[in-house]
C-alpha cells in the first residue's frame, strides 16, 4: 500500500468499523510504525524509477517526504534545489543514483565535529569545561550522566556541577548519576545561584586536577529573555576561573521536536555561543531531521546522539548513518 494511501486511511478512521476490521487496522498501525523508516525510501524509488529526468511531480513528492521527516520547508526546498541542479547536469538517472545523490546532498549540509575526549588535551593544565544547555525536558541531565560515563571510561577524571538549582529534584537526579557513574559532583542547596555553583565546580575540579568539568543547567524556554541572560552570566563566570571556559557549549535537542528546534539553536547560540549539539531520544520513531537545517544555517555540528536511557546509550553522531537511517537503506 502506498505511503499516502496509508495515511489517508488513518485519517478516515472515523468510519464505523467492525471489530475484525479494527484489529486489522491495529495491525496496520503497528506495521506502519515499524515501517516509518522504509516507507520514505520506497516512495522515492517509486517516483523516479525508469525516468531519465525528475519531473515536477516527483520533486513535489520528495519535498513532502523531507517535510514529514521534520526537515522543514526551507531546508527541504534547498535540498530539492541542489538535487535539481545535479539532475540537470547528469541527464540520465536511475532510482539508486537519485537516492545516493539525495543522501550526499543532505550529508553535505551536515557539519561534523570530533569527540570531546580527543579535544581534552587541547587545553593545558586546566580542566576542559563543558556547559550543557537546552529547553525543559530534552534530556540534559541524562546526557550528562552518559557523557561522564564515556569520559571516565576513556580514563579522564570528571567533575559534575549541579547548576540546575531550580527544577524540583534536579540536583538529586544528577547526584544519582554521579554515584552510578562514579564521578565527583559539586552542588549547593536548591535555589542557590547557578553561576556560583559553576564557579565552585571549576575551582574544585582544578584543585583535584580533573580533566573534564560538565556543568548542568536548568531547562529554560529560549524566549524567556531573563532566563537566557542568566545563562550568559553563568557562562561568563566560568571564564573568570579558567580562561576560555567553557570550551564547549553543548545544546541538547529532543529528536521529536519540530521546527522550533531551529529557534532554540538560534537563541541559545546568541547568548552562549553553542558549538555542538546532542540529539536525544533517537531510539523512538522521531527522526530529528530538523538538525539538518540547524547544521546548514548555523554551522553547528551534531556531536552526540542519545539512543536510550542507559549509561552506554550515547553515540558519536555519524552523518552517513544518520542520513541512512532517514532513508533506512
Amino acid at each position, binding site marked *: 500500500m502506498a505511503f*499516502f494511501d496509508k*495515511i*489517508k486511511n*488513518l*485519517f478516515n478512521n*472515523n468510519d464505523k468499523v467492525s471489530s475484525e476490521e479494527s484489529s486489522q487496522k*491495529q495491525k496496520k*498501525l503497528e506495521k506502519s*510504525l515499524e515501517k*516509518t523508516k522504509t516507507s520514505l525510501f520506497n516512495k522515492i524509488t517509486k517516483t523516479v524509477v525508469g525516468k531519465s529526468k525528475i519531473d515536477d511531480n516527483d520533486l513535489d513528492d520528495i519535498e*513532502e517526504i523531507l*517535510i*514529514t*521527516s*521534520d526537515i*522543514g*520547508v526551507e531546508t527541504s526546498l534547498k535540498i530539492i534545489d541542489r538535487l535539481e541542479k545535479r539532475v540537470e547536469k547528469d541527464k540520465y538517472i536511475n532510482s539508486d543514483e537519485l537516492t545516493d545523490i539525495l543522501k550526499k546532498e543532505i550529508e553535505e549540509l551536515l557539519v561534523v565535529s570530533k569527540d570531546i575526549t580527543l579535544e581534552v588535551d587541547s587545553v593545558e593544565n586546566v580542566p576542559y569545561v563543558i556547559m550543557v544547555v537546552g*529547553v*525543559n*525536558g*530534552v*534530556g540534559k541531565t541524562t546526557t550528562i*550522566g552518559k557523557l561522564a560515563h564515556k569520559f571516565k571510561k576513556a580514563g579522564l577524571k570528571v567533575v559534575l556541577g549541579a547548576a540546575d538549582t*531550580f*527544577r*524540583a*529534584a*534536579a540536583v*538529586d*537526579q544528577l*547526584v*544519582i*548519576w554521579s554515584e*552510578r557513574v562514579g564521578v565527583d559532583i559539586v552542588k549547593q542547596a536548591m535555589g542557590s545561584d547557578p553561576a556560583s555553583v559553576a564557579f565552585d565546580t571549576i575551582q574544585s575540579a582544578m584543585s583535584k586536577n580533573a580533566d573534564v568539568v560538565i556543568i548542568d543547567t536548568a531547562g529554560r*524556554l*529560549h*524566549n*524567556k*529573555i*531573563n*532566563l*537566557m541572560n542568566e545563562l550568559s552570566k553563568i557562562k561568563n563566570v566560568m571564564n573568570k576561573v579558567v580562561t576560555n571556559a567553557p570550551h564547549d557549549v553543548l545544546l541538547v535537542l*529532543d529528536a*521529536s*521536536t*519540530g*521546527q*522550533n*528546534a531551529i*529557534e532554540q539553536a538560534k537563541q541559545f547560540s546568541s547568548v552562549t555561543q553553542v558549538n555542538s549539539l546532542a540529539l536525544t*531520544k533517537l*531510539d*523512538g*520513531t*522521531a*527522526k530529528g531531521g*530538523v538538525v539538518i537545517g540547524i547544521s546548514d544555517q548555523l554551522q553547528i555540528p551534531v556531536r552526540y546522539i542519545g539512543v536510550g*536511557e542507559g549509561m552506554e546509550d550515547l553515540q558519536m553522531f555519524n552523518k552517513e548513518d544518520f542520513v541512512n537511517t532517514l532513508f533506512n537503506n
Partner: protein
Amino acid sequence: MFENLSEKLDKAFKVLKGQGSISEINVAQTMKEIRKALISADVDYKTAKEFTATVKEKALGQEVLTTLKPGELLTKIMKDELAELMGSSSSELNLNSKPAIILVAGLQGSGKTTFCGKLAFFLKNNNKKSPLLVACDVYRPAAIDQISVLAEQVSAEVYKEIENKDPISISSNAVKYAKKNNHDVVIIDTAGRLAVDEAMMTEITNIKSSINPDEILFVVDSMTGQDAVNTAKAFNHRLDFNGVVLTKLDGDTRGGAALTIRSVVDKPIKFIGTSEKMEGLDIFHPDRMASRILGMGDVISLVERAQQQFDEQEARKIQKKIAKNTFGFDDFLKQIQQIKKMGNIKDLAGMIPGVGKAIKDVDIDDDAFKGIESIIYSMTPYERSNPNVLNGSRKKRIASGSGTNVQEINQLIKQFSQMGKMMKMMQGGGASKMMEMMKGNNLPRF
C-alpha cells in the same frame, strides 16, 4: 502564544487584501501560503493539506452570501475550521467516582510530573478536591523526589513506595490508600516511555487494567514535530486515552501539535501548561485557541484569569486611594504581587488582541519586579505612604539598602508618578467600561 503562526497567516492574508471577491486563483495562492505556514508551525503535512482544502472549499462556497471583505471572510472561515479541527467544545475531567482515578502518560520529558503537580493544585483550588499524587516513575533517577517536592509545593499528599519497583502494585496500593484516607482524586504519575518500547507500553496497559482509571491523560510537548501523529496514535491505540495535555505553551512557535493530535486521534485537548509555576495550567478552549492563532487574542482567558486572582476589594481600595491621591508605594507593591499571582506577564499580555505580536521579542517576566520590590522594601513606612518626601539623602540610603543606585530610584519614582497619573486618567472614562468588562459582563463571545 501562537504569534509566529499568526504572523505568517497575516502575511498570507495580505495577498487577498484589496481584492473584491474570492476567486479560485486568489484563494489558491493564499492557501499555499497558509499551508506552508501551518507546516512550518509543525502541523502534520496531511492535516495541513486537508485543512486548507476544506477552507478553500468553504470560502468558494460562501462567496456570494456575504458582504465581508475576502480577507475577513477567510479569517472567519479559518477560525471556525481551526476550532472545529481542535474540538468543537472544551472538555472537562470526569471526577464523579470516589476516588476519581487519573492516569498520566507520555514520552520522556514531555512534562508529566510537572503537570501532575499543577493538576493537583488546580483541583484543590477549582474543584475543592483532596488529591493524592502517586509516584509511579520507578525508573528515572530522582523522579520520586521530584514529585514529592512538587506535592509539598502544592500542599498535596504524595503516595510512594521507595523499595517497590513495580508501578502496577504501587498504583493499586495507592488507590486503596486513597479510599481509606478520603482522597477524592488520585493522580498517577508514570515514567516517560517511547511508543515503540514494547515492554514499557505493556506495563502501562497493565497499570490501566489493574486500576481502571476514570481519566487517562496523554501529555505532549507542544514543540513536537511531525512525529506527534505517530506517538499520539500509538498511545491512543494502547490506552484509548480520554484527553490530551499540551505542555510548554509559553514557548514561541508551536501550535502544530495542537492542531494535529486533536484531529488524528479524535480526543480532546483538556489542559494546556504555560509555565514552570504550579499555577501555570489552563483548561483548553478550542475556540479561544483558534482566535489566538488568527491573532484575534484571547480576551476571555485573560479576564477569567484576572478574575480568579484579582481581589476585588483590594482593587476598590486602590481605586479610592488613587482618587484621593493617597496611592503610595505600599499599594504599588500590593499591585505588583497581585499581578505576579496571575502568572507570567508576557502570557497575560499575549492574550490581549494585537499585543501578542508587539511583545514577541520583549521579555517581561517576574524578575522584572525584583528590583522594584527591593527598592520599596528599603523604604521606611513613612516614605512608602508619602513618596514626596524622598530627597537626595533618603534616596542614597534606599539605594545602598536595596543594592541599586540613585538613578534607578529616580527612575522608579518617575514611573510611579506616571502610573499614578495614568490611573487617574483611566478612572475618568474608558477605564470604567474596561472594569465592567473585567467583571464578566458583556464579554465578546467568539
